[in-house]
C-alpha cells in the first residue's frame, strides 16, 4: 500500500499546472468537488459567526451587543448563507461531485465543463451575496424567505441578495442535470440499478429535485427583482396582486429544497453505518424506495409552511395529511440503520459517532416536525422558537452532522492522509452536547410562546435563553476543534491506505487519493472484493 499512497494522484495536476488556476480551471470532478468543499466550509464559518453573534445578543433581554436593525440583517444573512451557499450545495456539489463518478466506476461526470461552469456560477452568486452584505446601503433584513410585501418595500440590499439566490439556483440546476445524466449514461455497464451504492442513489434522487424544483424559485425571485426594479407589482395587493401567491411559489421550491438538503445526508449515513458495523446495509431495497418516496412526496407538502397564512380547511388538512406521509419513508430509513447496527461488529470510530449523532438528532427533528405538521399544534407553535429548534435539529443535527460524518469517512480517500481520531471524537462530544444545550431549550421557549426572529424578550425567558447561548459556545468550540483536526490531518497526517475502513464500494478500490482518471483499470462492480 505504501507505494500506492506515495503518489499524490489527482492532487498532482496533469501538465504540471500548479496553484489556484489549476483548480479553478480544472474539469476534474474531484478537483471541482474539493473547490466546492472549501467554498461551502468557508461560508459555513461565516454563517456560524453570524449565528454565534445572534446568540450572544440574546444572552440578556434588551440591547446587548448590537442594534435591532443589525440583528435583523444578521438573521437574514445567517439564513441566506446557510441555506443557499452551504446546506444546498454542501453534499451534492462537493462530496457528491467527488464520489458519484467513483462509486459508479466512471472516469468523470457526463459534462465536465458544465460542472466547472456550475462552480463559476456558484462563485458569482457568492460574490453577489457578499455585495449584498457589504455594498452601500444596508444589508437585507427580510429573513431568508424574502416574503412580500416587505421584501419589495424595504430599502435594504434585497435586490442583490435575491439575485444572488437566483444565480445560485442556476448553479444547482446544472449540477443536478449533470448528475442525472452521469448516473444514466456513465454508470459502469455492469452495475444494475438495484446494485447502485446508496449514496449514489441519494445524489440521483436529489438531482431530480434540484432540476424539477429550482426553476420555480428562479422565476419567483425574478418577479421580486422586477417588482423592485420595474414596479411590476404582481404580488402587490394595491394592484390586485396576491402576497399569498408569492408564499405558495416560494414554498413550492423551498420545501423540496429541504429534501435537497436532507436526502444526500441520509445517503452518507447509509454508507457510514454499514462500513463500521462490518455488515451489509439492512434492507437495501427499502432504503432505495424510501429515498425516491421522500423525493416525490416532498413536492406535495409545501402548504404546511402556510397553515396560518390563510388557506381553505380542505387544503390545510390535505397538506397536513401529506406531511405525515413523508414521515413514513423517513422512519423506514431510521429503522434500517438501526437494524444494520444490530448484531454488527461495531467499530466505534469518529465517522460512526457523527452518524449516530445524526440518527439521534434527526429523529428528534423529524418527530417534532410532526408537531408542526399537525394543524392544531401548528397554530400554537407557528413562527416560534419551536420551529427554529425543529429545523436546526433537521438541518444542522441532521445534514450538518452527516456532512461531518461524510468528511471524516472520505477524508483519507480525498486527501490520501489520515487525521488523528481522538480529537475528532472530542470534537463530537463538544458538538453533540453543545448542540443539544443550544437548541433543546428553544423547543421549550417556543412552546411557551417565544416568537422567532425577535430581538428582545420578556425577563421570564432569560434563563433558558442564557442556557441556549452557553450551548453555542460548546458547539463552536467543537466545530473549531474538528476544523483544526482535519487541517492538521491534511498537512501532517500519516499516509492513508486505499481502503482504511475495510469498506465496500468502488471508491475504495482505487488508490488514496485517486489518480486523475479515477481508476487505473475500470473496476468490475459484479465481483465483490472480500472485505478484510
Amino acid at each position, binding site marked *: 500500500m505504501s507505494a500506492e499512497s506515495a503518489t499524490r494522484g489527482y492532487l498532482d495536476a496533469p501538465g504540471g499546472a500548479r496553484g489556484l488556476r489549476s483548480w479553478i480551471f480544472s474539469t476534474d470532478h474531484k478537483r471541482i468537488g474539493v473547490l466546492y468543499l472549501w467554498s461551502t466550509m468557508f461560508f459555513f464559518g461565516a454563517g456560524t459567526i453570524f449565528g454565534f453573534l445572534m446568540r450572544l445578543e440574546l444572552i440578556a433581554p434588551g440591547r446587548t451587543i448590537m442594534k435591532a436593525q443589525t440583528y435583523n440583517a444578521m438573521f437574514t444573512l445567517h439564513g441566506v448563507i446557510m441555506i443557499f451557499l452551504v446546506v444546498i450545495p454542501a453534499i451534492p456539489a462537493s462530496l457528491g461531485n467527488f464520489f458519484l463518478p467513483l462509486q459508479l466506476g466512471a472516469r468523470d461526470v*457526463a459534462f465536465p465543463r*458544465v460542472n466547472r461552469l456550475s462552480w463559476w456560477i456558484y462563485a458569482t452568486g457568492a460574490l453577489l451575496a457578499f455585495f449584498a452584505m457589504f455594498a452601500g446601503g444596508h444589508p437585507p433584513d427580510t429573513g431568508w424567505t424574502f416574503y412580500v410585501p416587505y421584501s419589495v418595500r424595504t430599502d435594504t440590499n434585497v435586490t442583490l441578495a435575491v439575485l444572488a439566490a437566483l444565480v445560485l439556483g442556476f448553479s444547482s*440546476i446544472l449540477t443536478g442535470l449533470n448528475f*442525472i445524466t452521469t448516473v444514466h*449514461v456513465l454508470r459502469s455497464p455492469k452495475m444494475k440499478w438495484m446494485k447502485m451504492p446508496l449514496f449514489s442513489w441519494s445524489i440521483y434522487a436529489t438531482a431530480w429535485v434540484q432540476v424539477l424544483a429550482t426553476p*420555480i424559485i428562479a422565476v419567483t425571485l425574478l418577479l421580486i427583482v*422586477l417588482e423592485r426594479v420595474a414596479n411590476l*407589482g404582481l404580488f402587490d395587493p394595491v394592484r*390586485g*396582486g396576491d402576497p399569498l401567491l408569492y408564499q405558495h411559489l416560494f414554498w413550492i421550491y423551498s420545501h423540496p429544497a429541504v429534501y435537497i438538503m436532507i436526502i444526500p445526508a441520509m445517503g452518507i449515513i447509509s454508507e457510514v453505518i454499514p462500513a463500521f458495523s462490518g455488515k451489509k446495509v439492512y434492507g437495501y431495497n427499502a432504503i432505495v424506495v424510501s429515498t425516491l418516496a421522500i423525493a416525490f412526496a416532498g413536492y406535495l407538502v409545501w402548504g404546511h409552511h402556510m397553515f396560518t397564512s390563510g388557506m381553505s380547511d380542505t387544503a390545510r388538512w390535505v397538506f397536513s395529511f401529506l406531511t405525515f406521509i413523508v414521515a413514513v419513508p423517513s422512519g423506514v430509513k431510521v429503522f434500517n440503520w438501526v437494524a444494520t447496527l444490530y448484531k454488527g461488529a461495531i467499530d466505534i470510530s469518529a465517522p460512526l459517532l457523527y452518524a449516530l449523532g445524526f440518527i439521534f438528532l434527526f429523529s428528534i427533528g423529524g418527530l417534532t416536525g410532526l408537531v408542526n405538521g399537525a394543524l392544531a399544534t401548528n397554530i400554537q407553535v407557528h413562527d416560534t422558537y419551536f420551529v427554529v429548534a425543529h429545523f436546526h435539529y433537521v438541518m444542522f443535527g441532521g445534514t450538518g452532522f452527516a456532512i461531518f460524518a461524510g468528511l471524516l469517512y472520505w477524508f483519507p480517500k480525498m486527501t490520501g492522509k489520515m487525521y488523528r481520531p481522538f480529537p475528532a471524537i472530542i470534537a463530537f462530544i463538544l458538538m453533540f452536547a453543545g448542540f443539544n444545550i443550544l437548541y433543546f431549550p428553544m423547543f421549550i421557549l417556543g412552546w411557551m410562546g417565544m416568537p422567532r426572529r425577535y430581538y428582545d424578550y420578556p425577563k421570564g425567558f432569560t434563563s433558558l435563553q442564557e442556557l441556549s447561548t452557553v450551548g453555542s459556545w460548546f458547539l463552536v468550540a467543537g466545530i473549531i476543534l474538528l476544523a483544526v483536526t482535519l487541517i492538521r490531518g491534511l498537512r501532517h497526517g500519516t499516509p492513508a491506505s486505499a481502503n482504511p475502513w475495510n469498506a465496500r464500494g468502488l471508491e475504495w478500490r482505487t488508490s488514496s487519493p485517486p489518480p486523475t482518471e479515477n481508476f487505473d483499470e475500470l473496476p468490475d462492480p459484479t465481483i465483490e472484493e472480500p472485505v478484510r
Partner: protein
Amino acid sequence: MTETPRIPRASRMGMWLFLFTEILLFGGLFLVYAVYRRANPEAFHIASGELSLRFGAINTVILLTSSLTMALAVSAFERGLVGRCLRFLAGTAGLGLIFLGNKAVEWSAKFAHGLYPGNPILEARPAGEKLFFSLYFAMTGLHGVHVLVGVVVLAVTAVLAGRSARADAARVHEKYGGVVENSGLYWHLVDTIWIFLFPLFYLIS
C-alpha cells in the same frame, strides 16, 4: 436500431433535462397567469383588446416558419449537406431577429400609450388590467430574452457546423451533430412557449 454512442446520448439527455427546467421556469409564470386570470376574467378580457392582434399573428407565423427552417437545417446536417444547413440556420436566426424587431415595435407602442407599470394612465385602470400588463411584459419579455439567446446559440452552432465543412465529415458529425440537434430542440421549445403565450394574451378579448 444500433446502440447510440454514450456521449451523444448524454448530450441529448442533458438537453432534454434542460428543456424540462425551461418549461418549469415558464410554468411558474403560467401559474401566476392562471391565478390572476381566474380572479379577473373581465379585466383580462378588456386589457387583451389593447394588444395588436395583427402584430401577434404575424409574429406567430414568423416563429412557426423559423421552426420549419430549423428542422430543415437539422435534417440537412444529418445528410451531410453542411452548406444547406448553414443557410437554413441563417434563415432561422434572421426570422428570430425579425420577431424581436416586431416585438420591440409592439412594446414601444404600449409605452407610447402609457400602458406600462408605473405610468399614471395604466395606474388609473382597474387592478386586473394592471396585472394583465405586468404579466404581458414579464412573460413576453422573458420569452424575448430566450429568443435572443436562441439567436446567439444559432450563430455559435453555425460556426461549429461550418468547421465540419473543412474536416473529416464523419468525425466532425460525431463531434458536432449533437450541437445542431440540441440547438434545434431549444429553438423549438422557445417556439412552443410562444404558441401558448399568443392565445393567452392576444386571443382572449
